[in-house]
């Protein structure tokens, strides 16, 4: 099971930089980078709520569940 984070896509759609988002939601830019790359153990609802408020989106726009079989097949096809 893996959760894919599409924060970079939403930032591009809203033409916002990571640093701006970090300042708006009150976390460090480093944490935003970790979140974009999916290298975090989890996201608090509070943080997710603030991201959605700033980027005017839904959690589903940011997070996608990809079963392990699909993700491994996708990496083989590449």
């Amino acid at each position, binding site marked *: 099971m893996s959760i894919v984070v599409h924060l970079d896509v939403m930032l591009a759609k809203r033409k916002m930089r990571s640093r701006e988002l970090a300042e708006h939601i009150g*976390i460090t830019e480093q*944490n935003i980078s*970790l*979140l974009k790359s999916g290298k975090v*153990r*989890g*996201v608090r609802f509070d943080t997710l709520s603030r991201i959605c408020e700033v980027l005017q989106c839904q959690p589903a726009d940011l997070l996608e569940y990809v079963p392990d079989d699909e993700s491994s097949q996708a990496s083989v096809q590449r």
Partner: protein
Amino acid sequence: MQAMPTEKTPLLLAPTPMDRIRRIANLMRGMVVIGGTVFVASTLFLWFSHQWVEIVAMRDVGVDAASISLTPAAQWVSALAALVPLSVGVFGMFQVWKLFGDYAQGQIFTSQASTRLRRLAWSLIVCAAAQVLARTATSLALTFNNPPGKKMLIVNISSTDYTFVLFGVLLLGIAWVMVEATRLAQENAEFI
């Protein structure tokens, strides 16, 4: 109408928990340096004072002044025996000094802090055992030159030794709890 803060009346901010930790940490480090210096100096001075050796022999070792043969060799052996628990005590105080140095820098839930706490705990336990052995060695050294039948080998365990062991075990328990707390803190830090 409320008066606005000016340069002469700065806005007073309540101390944060970290401010309090820093204050206590600096206080503890100062106390360790002063206490450690006095402890080491007084112990070294003690064993070169005839009068104090007699007092220690009676009070701590359990040998009365009339029963001891205080020769320079006996004084040196007793001083060396006292160095053992003293060294362990200094090691423990060094761990306290380093531990509160870490706390002052905000490094509280770290594996290093847990390690220092464990070392401090073990130093207390070992110090208690070392003190018993030192007193035994001292009783032998101070009565070694006595006539046959008047030499003494005393094993003296005091309430202070028990207290050292008790606090050592207590700190050891706290140290293992801190290991778990450190793991939880690190796990929490991985949540954004």
